[in-house]
């Protein structure tokens, strides 16, 4: 018999309940901890196509002219965002390490002053961590007056260490109208 079973039943029950309740609270907290954990995990492994949310430093590893990567651009507006949103070109070809500059066009057609936020995603997801943005309109919110239009900059390079089997990658932007949540 272990030591615990010598104690009166009430005391053991109390101890058991306390431990289990602590487990319950710990698991509740763990549910929320999964949110940052998920981000960290995706950040390390680059699994879900999320790109960095801050600017990368300029490439210092030189240019690999032996490889050519096709980068496609996709733009879409989320439901409820009455904005025009399109890249100036649909795709470009780059060498790994080579800096490129692309402009995206946006026009606010919602009939009111608004703020938009573009959210990038790279496919295949594993390429996301090799896609380096020096400058991107997605780093900031984009306020536009009604009917105002703007050309928004994107400056990037593809990391020289991009895995051999990836020759084509797609950068997709979704534009959200965040006027209401940005105000409040």
């Amino acid at each position, binding site marked *: 018999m272990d030591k615990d079973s010598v104690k009166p*039943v009430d005391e*053991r*029950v109390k101890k*058991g*309940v306390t431990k*289990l*309740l602590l*487990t*319950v*609270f*710990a*698991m*509740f*907290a*763990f*549910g*929320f901890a*999964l*949110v940052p954990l*998920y*981000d960290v995990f995706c950040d390390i*492994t680059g*699994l*879900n*196509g*999320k790109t960095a*949310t801050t600017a990368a430093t300029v490439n210092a590893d030189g240019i690999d002219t032996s490889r050519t990567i096709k980068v496609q651009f996709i733009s879409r507006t*989320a*439901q409820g965002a009455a904005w025009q949103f399109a890249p100036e070109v649909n795709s470009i070809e780059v060498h790994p390490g080579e800096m490129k500059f692309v402009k995206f066009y946006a026009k606010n057609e919602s009939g009111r002053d608004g703020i938009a*936020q573009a*959210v990038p995603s790279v*496919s*295949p*997801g*594993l390429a996301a961590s090799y896609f380096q943005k020096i400058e991107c309109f997605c780093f900031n919110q984009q306020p536009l007056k009604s009917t105002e239009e703007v050309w928004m900059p994107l400056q990037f390079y593809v990391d020289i260490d991009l895995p051999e089997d990836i020759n084509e990658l797609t950068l997709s932007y*979704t534009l*959200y109208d*965040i006027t209401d*949540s940005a105000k*409040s």
Partner: protein
Amino acid sequence: MTTATETLEHHDDDHHDHKMTGIKRWLYTTNHKDIGSLYLWFSFIMFLTGGAMAMVIRAELFQPGLQIIEPDFFNQMTTVHGLIMVFGAIMPAFTGLANWMLPMMIGAPDMALPRLNNWSFWILPFAFAILLSSLFMESGGPNFGWTFYAPLSTTYSNGSTAFFVFAVHIMGISSIMGAINIVVTIMNLRAPGMTYMKMPLFVWTFFITAYLLIAVMPVLAGTVTMVLTDTYFGTSFFNAAGGGDPVMFQHIFWFFGHPEVYIMILPAFGIVSTIIPAFARKPLFGYSSMVYATSSIAFLSFIVWAHHMFTTGMPLAGELFFMYCTMLIAVPTGVKVFNWVATMWQGSMTFETPMLFSIAFVILFTIGGFSGLMLAMTPVDFQYHDTYFVVAHFHYVLVTGSLFSIFAGAYYWLPKWTGHMYSEKLGKLHFWCSLISVNLLFFPMHFLGLAGMPRRIPDYALQFADFNKWVSIGGFAFGLSQLIFLVVVIKCIKGGEKAPAKPWDGAEGLEWEVPSPAPYHTFSTPPEIK
């Protein structure tokens, strides 16, 4: 033994037998048998409610085209049907069985926390009242599927999200309290001499299930809370516009969701492992391997969740990991099925209703397991994902698995509960009607799914018409068959042949040492375990 228990009761001041009368008896009761009955009746009412919704779904799908209900209401029906069957029918039925049988099986006078027990039952009706009331509101009930994927439940919610979230919170609190009660009861109130490896397997499976509940129900509570704040308070857990990620919803949800499916099947394993030895008149084959298999399944359930998400664009390494882990579950499950068959092997079997349901469980649950194995294969899942094949799979494991085991358990212990034998003739009628109709209902769904019919749709392409008609007929027949069960139970409560203390001659366990019907208080002094 029996007389000793009864005489002692009259000397015990804490347990004198003055029950309150009328509704107060049930509202204030802290008796595990009363609460067990409440749970069982509640789950049966919910089973009929969720079943009625299934009838609406099958009526709409009887023919292609929209006949009876609007697509939005159809979605509400599939959603609430799922929620009610999972949280209202299967889980409370298991908790009811645990309440009734656990203390008697381990020789305890009651659950360790009787008042908590009362509370964990009585908040349940409120949870379901909240959930069901939203169906009658202008904006309608939850229509985003029982899995409430964001953004369906957040951005595109019809206004029912708050009702849904609070209902799930209350159900979760109820389950967690019930689980805590089960764990501390098993750990502390076992009769002297009953070591862990001497516990009936029924007790083991509920022990492990309770741990699963304690581990994952809080995660569900967290998930619905995030959905709530995303919908109403402007947070962006699952909203890409604010830096969140809708795919993350699926990860967090299925981290709860996969252990949840084992919460609904492990107790079934325990019930069947109790009944098959009784009617094969042989001890359970491989008791300790059953315990270890149950524990391994419980452990594996935590590392397979993303097999629900093979089509979300996971990288190859992730898909392989989750595929292999999922297929690994077939090993302990195979051990169990082998043990059940080996228990029956060369036994002197008789086929009373509980045994019939148990044998049907072994066969049909295995079919559900095989389709699960098919779904576990990533490339194959790309074809099956979100089709009726999935619907067929989880109804085979939940209806002919969990539900059949509950029926088996109910028939097995009805004499102990009521003191009367149930009508074997009606029981067998219930079994055969259920068996035939349930297969007519769910088996063709495999083919519908393989042929490409998507799930959760109110209308379908013409080539699926014939099979859907048969499925619907099977559905109506299965629904009606369950009324036979209601008749059996009511008849059994009202009267019938007197049941002896141990009506099944192969049955083993402490619950058969007390008279039938089980007295209000049993084992006020713990029995001796040899």
